[in-house]
C-alpha cells in the first residue's frame, strides 16, 4: 500500500515536471481545454443570473383587475363570485381602494406624494393568481375584459413566463454546447496523449522489456490527462470570472440608475470544485481512450 502510494506520488510529481518542461505545449493545451469549458460555463452563468432575476418576480403571472369608479358593493360581490368560477384563475384577492392607499403610504418613495393627495384616486381592484402558460393567459385576459364594471385589465408578470420559456431554450442550448465541447475536450486530450506516447515510444518499449506492468506504463498518461483536464477547468473558471467582473462594471452602472445593487454572481465554491472534477474526469477519459488505443501498438521486437 505504501509502495503503491509512493509510486503514485512519484508519477504525479513526474507528470508536473514533464508538463513544466514543455511549457508552450502545456499552456496551449490547457488554453484549448479552458476555452472549450469556458463557453458553456459562461452561458450557464448568464442563464443562472437571468433566472435569479426572474425568480425574484412572482412566478405565477398575476392579473390585476381595476374596477370602474362607479362599481358598488353588489357589483364587487357579483364579480368576485364570477371570477372564482372562471377557468384559469387560481386565487382571487380583493384590494379595496382604501387599502391600496394605505399600502402606497407605506412605500417610502411614494409617501410624500400620497400625503399631498386631497382625495383617493385609486380604484378598487382584484388581484388574480392564474395558472397555465402564456397562451392561456392571453385568452383569460381577453375574457376578463368583457366583464362588467372593469376599467382595466393588467397582466403583471406575463413577460416572466415568456422569459422563462426563452431561458429554458437557452439552457437546452447550453447543455448541447456543453456536450459537444466535452467531446472536444476528450478529443484534445486523446490527441495530446497520443503525441506524448509517440515521443516516449522508446522509453515505453524499454520499460516493457525490463518488466514494467501495463498499469505502470499507463499511469503517467492517466495523470497527464487528469492534470491537463483539471488545469483546463481552472483556466475556464479564471476566464469566466474575469469576464464576469468586466461585465459587472457596466451592470453596476446600469443597476445604479434603477436604484438596484444587482450584479452577476459567480459559481459557488462547491460548484467550482464540481467543475474541476468534471474537467479532470474528462481529461482522464480522453487519456484512457488514447492509452487503450495506442499503447498496445508499442510492443518490443
Amino acid at each position, binding site marked *: 500500500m505504501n509502495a503503491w502510494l509512493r509510486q503514485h506520488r*512519484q508519477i504525479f510529481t513526474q507528470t508536473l515536471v514533464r508538463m513544466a518542461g514543455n511549457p508552450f505545449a502545456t499552456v496551449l493545451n490547457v488554453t484549448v481545454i479552458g476555452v472549450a469549458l469556458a463557453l458553456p460555463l459562461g452561458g450557464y452563468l448568464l442563464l443562472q443570473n437571468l433566472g435569479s432575476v426572474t425568480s425574484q418576480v412572482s412566478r405565477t403571472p398575476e392579473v390585476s383587475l381595476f374596477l370602474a369608479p362607479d362599481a358598488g358593493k353588489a357589483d364587487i360581490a357579483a364579480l368576485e363570485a364570477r371570477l372564482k368560477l372562471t377557468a384559469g384563475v387560481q386565487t382571487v384577492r380583493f384590494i379595496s381602494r382604501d387599502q391600496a392607499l394605505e399600502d402606497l403610504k407605506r412605500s417610502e418613495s411614494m409617501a410624500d406624494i400620497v400625503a399631498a393627495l386631497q382625495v383617493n384616486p385609486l380604484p378598487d381592484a382584484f388581484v388574480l393568481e392564474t395558472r397555465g402558460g402564456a397562451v392561456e393567459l392571453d385568452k383569460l385576459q381577453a375574457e376578463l375584459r368583457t366583464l362588467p364594471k372593469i376599467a382595466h385589465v393588467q397582466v403583471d408578470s406575463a413577460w416572466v413566463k415568456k422569459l422563462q420559456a426563452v431561458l429554458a431554450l437557452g439552457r437546452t442550448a447550453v447543455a448541447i454546447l456543453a456536450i459537444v465541447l466535452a467531446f472536444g475536450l476528450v478529443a484534445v486530450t486523446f490527441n495530446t496523449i497520443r503525441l506524448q506516447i509517440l515521443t516516449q515510444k522508446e522509453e515505453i518499449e*524499454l520499460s516493457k*522489456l525490463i518488466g514494467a506492468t501495463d498499469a505502470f506504463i499507463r499511469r503517467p498518461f492517466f495523470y497527464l490527462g487528469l492534470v491537463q483536464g483539471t488545469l483546463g477547468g481552472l483556466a475556464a473558471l479564471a476566464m469566466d470570472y474575469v469576464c464576469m467582473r468586466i461585465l459587472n462594471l457596466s451592470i453596476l452602472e446600469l443597476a445604479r440608475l434603477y436604484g438596484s445593487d444587482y450584479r452577476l454572481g459567480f459559481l459557488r465554491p462547491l460548484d467550482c470544485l464540481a467543475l474541476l472534477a468534471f474537467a479532470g474526469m474528462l481529461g482522464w477519459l480522453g487519456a484512457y481512450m488514447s492509452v487503450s488505443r495506442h499503447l498496445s501498438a508499442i510492443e518490443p521486437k
Partner: protein
Amino acid sequence: MISFSQVRKSYRGGHEALRDLSFNIDDGELVFITGRSGAGKSTLLKLIPAIERPTGGTVLVNGQNIGSMRRPAIPYLRRNLGLVFQDQKLLYDRSVFDNVMLPLAVTGHLHKDAVRRARAALDKVGLLPREKANPITLSGGEQQRLCIARAVVNRPSILLADEPTASLDSASAAEVVEMFRAFNQVGVTVLIATHDEALVERLHPRVLELMQGRLVQ
C-alpha cells in the same frame, strides 16, 4: 535454469529461425551462442524473456513455460532477467544515473534504496564519475558498460547479452567481457550471443553454435 526442448520458431512468411533446438543451461553457467548473422542467435535470446514466443517445443526459464505464459505474468519474468540489447536502447533524454534508475522505478523500489543500488551498479562498471553525464557523451565502450549496469541493477539471476562487443574496439570488448565474467563468478547465469571468434577462443566457455537455426554438434 534454462531449458529448450525441440524448440521451433518460424516467422510469418514462413522463415524458420530456429528448428528443433534442444539444450539445457544450468544455474551459474557462462554460455556463448555463436554463429553467423541470421543463424538464429537473437531469436534464441528473445525467446527467454518472452519477447518472442516459440512456435513449437518448450522453453522453460526458472521452471516457467514461456510458450504458455499469460501476458500479465511476463513483466514479472523479465524482472528476474538482465537484458543487454544489441541496439542498446539507452534513453538520451536523461542522465546516465537516471538510465540506471529506470528498472528500479519499474519494480517500485524505495527511492533511497534505489539510489544506493544504482550507484553500486554504476560503480561496478566504472561509470560512477560520469553519473550526471548524458549517455550520448559517453564512448562506445562506456555506453555498453552503462547497458550492463542497467541490466544488473535489479540483481537478476540470468543475464542475456546480444552482441555486446559488436561495435567495440578489442580493448573495450575485453573489458566488457571481463565484466560478464565477473558477474558469472558471483553466481549469475550469463548468455552471450556473439560472432566474435577471438572472444570465444580467449575464454574457452561453453559454446552453443547455431547454423541455420540448428545446433552444430
